[in-house]
């Protein structure tokens, strides 16, 4: 039977920010399938103009309530590369720790609060308070460990306070660092329980071949800085990010769109995995193997699994990093900074994908020009085209309006979009 149906989701739920999904099927064929970002624009690139270098990271952090640490670090990196600043090794490790904390809290938020209800057939995690308090407890403990790691190192999990150009304002207190090490150690068992829950979820069977782009520093799994790489075989320097992003404006969207070798590309956990899987720590690699995640994977729903794999990686990486810091000490966590008229690019792997900040400074150490390219901006075109392909696949097989709504929402959520961020 050839189906006719319409999916019209205004302000999709369980995502950060405001986006709309529209799908129309007539006579079994996709007539229209759209993903549109309708978030109110904020003009951060304009607001950054004239700001002193000491405030750039603080203001940039406010682009995003979930990944403020990534924004702050990309901003700081852009400024440090402009001014020619090298931070002490302890500061570099502490920044990585703060970022791992953010990755953990952000991925757990997505996996447990935003994505899991789809697999459980629930409208949100709220009914679980009564139905499955053990799962809520698990979510609480896991996310708590990530948040505390960022709190201890960055002073706060949302809008960090210790991260500054030149290093950190101060090292974390040793008792607090040891305590959070204990939290992380204990979270390994919780993480195993989470894996068991996700292993039982049916991941929709859908593939659309695309290009993936991520940082590829070469020696470690990507986090802060490095070369840019694509699964279509292109590699570029961090400074040449514009050739990798090619942003353009769509008349119906307040977020920009991006393209590279094809009509669209994807960034995020799955892209990082596809380009850097060999550099995952052994427990994370083993989990990927167990869950059937292999490079290069073109099923966007597997981004959830890649996030889970990254949680294992970030937990083990943090434990090792804390041990090194406790062993080597944190006597020096900053260097003096002298501003100059110069330009710098900072690329960071935010939880949702590669993030670029690019500033030009005047002789007073104030920003003359700023450009920020956000992960979700880079994913928009890919989400849009995936929607068409998914709708076509399901329309051909025959489905109901409710099922189409559920699948389309799940697809967009799988990208864990950060919509306010993408509009900035």
């Amino acid at each position, binding site marked *: 039977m050839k189906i006719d149906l319409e999916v019209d989701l205004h302000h999709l739920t369980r995502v950060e920010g405001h986006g709309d999904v529209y799908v129309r099927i007539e006579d079994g064929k996709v007539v229209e399938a759209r993903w549109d970002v309708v978030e109110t624009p904020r003009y951060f690139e304009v607001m950054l103009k004239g700001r002193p270098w000491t405030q750039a990271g603080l203001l940039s952090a406010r682009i995003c309530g979930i990944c403020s640490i990534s924004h702050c670090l990309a901003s700081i990196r852009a400024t440090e590369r402009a001014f020619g600043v090298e931070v002490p090794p302890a500061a570099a490790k502490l920044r990585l720790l703060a970022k791992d904390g953010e990755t953990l809290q952000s991925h757990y938020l997505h996996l447990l609060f935003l994505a899991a209800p789809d697999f459980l057939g629930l409208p949100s995690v709220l009914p679980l308070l009564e139905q499955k308090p053990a799962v809520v407890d698990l979510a609480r403990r896991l996310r708590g460990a990530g948040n505390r790691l960022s709190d201890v190192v*960055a*002073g706060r999990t949302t809008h960090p306070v210790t991260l500054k150009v030149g290093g950190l304002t101060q090292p974390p207190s040793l008792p607090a660092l040891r305590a959070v090490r204990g939290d992380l150690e204990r979270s390994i068992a919780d993480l195993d329980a989470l894996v068991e829950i996700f292993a039982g979820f049916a991941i929709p069977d859908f593939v659309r071949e695309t290009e993936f782009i991520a940082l590829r520093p070469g020696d470690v799994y990507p986090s802060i800085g490095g070369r840019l790489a694509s699964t279509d075989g292109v590699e570029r320097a961090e400074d040449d990010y514009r050739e990798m992003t090619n942003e353009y404006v769509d008349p119906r969207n307040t977020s920009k769109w991006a393209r590279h070798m094809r009509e669209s590309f994807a960034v995020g956990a799955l892209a990082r995995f596809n380009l850097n899987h060999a550099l995952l720590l052994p427990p994370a690699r083993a989990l990927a193997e167990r869950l059937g995640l292999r490079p290069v994977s073109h099923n966007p729903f597997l981004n959830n699994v890649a996030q889970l794999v990254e949680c294992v990686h970030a937990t083990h990486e943090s434990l090792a990093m804390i041990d090194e810091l406790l062993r080597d000490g944190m006597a020096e966590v900053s260097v003096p900074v002298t501003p100059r008229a110069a330009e710098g690019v900072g690329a960071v792997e935010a939880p949702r994908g590669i993030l670029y900040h690019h500033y030009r400074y005047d002789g007073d150490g104030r920003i003359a020009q700023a450009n920020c390219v956000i992960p979700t901006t880079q994913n928009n075109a890919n989400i849009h085209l995936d929607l068409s392909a998914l709708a076509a696949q399901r329309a051909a097989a025959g489905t109901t309006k409710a099922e189409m709504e559920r699948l389309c929402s799940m697809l967009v959520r799988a990208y864990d979009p950060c919509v306010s961020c993408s509009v900035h």
Partner: protein
Amino acid sequence: MKYLGIRPQDLRVAVFDFTGCEGCELQLANREETLVDFLRAARLVRFREIADEAADEYDVALVEGAISRADEIDRLQRIRERARLLVALGTCACYGGVNKLKNAFDFAEANAAVYGAQAKETLPARAVSDVVSVDLAIPGCPVSKEEVERILQHLLWDVPWRFPSYPVCLECKQRFTVCTFQKGELCLGPITMGGCGAPCPAGGLGCLGCRGPAADPNVDEFRSIARERGFGDRDVAAKLEFFGSFDPIAAR
């Protein structure tokens, strides 16, 4: 259940977001040690960021973000009509927040810089109270979840809530944080309303005044001390204007 003969109110809480980063509403899902209690006490009937539930009947509306587009004004007015208690949640909602930095620029030029030829609609960023009446304003960038929890307790028991009149400095003293101002950094702590627990100075960062002025702030003395310590008017202005929370004072 009654406690000492008084029954707590059953409050249906809805969360709404406007121009901002959604970091304040995220705080509602943070502070894991009390999260379960919090979610039981505040009956969340609408919270788009984490839930499909979207009730149109609610008692308390938590409104996050500044207002900067015509459709936001309409949406906010509808929320005002429905809510018994409208709460501005966070510095963007209370003061306009960092969004107000945009207001100093020409919007046609700003649009050309960001979107090229395809300009997007935008209005000057405003606080929620510039558009509708607000019953309670909880500032902070982001809000302190601990304070939100205390306020919720007051609402549930229908006991009036009062913000502290003292500045952030008092909380630094309580935490034994070495004075950031004394360490040579410009800090708005002496003139900013306390209640946040002073996390920024504790992290080695001078206060940026996200909570707005303390009661009767001694701004003249603050300016003269800042000058004595070698900070120029431009340095002071860059701090005072950051969150738009000192606008009437900064203009003096």
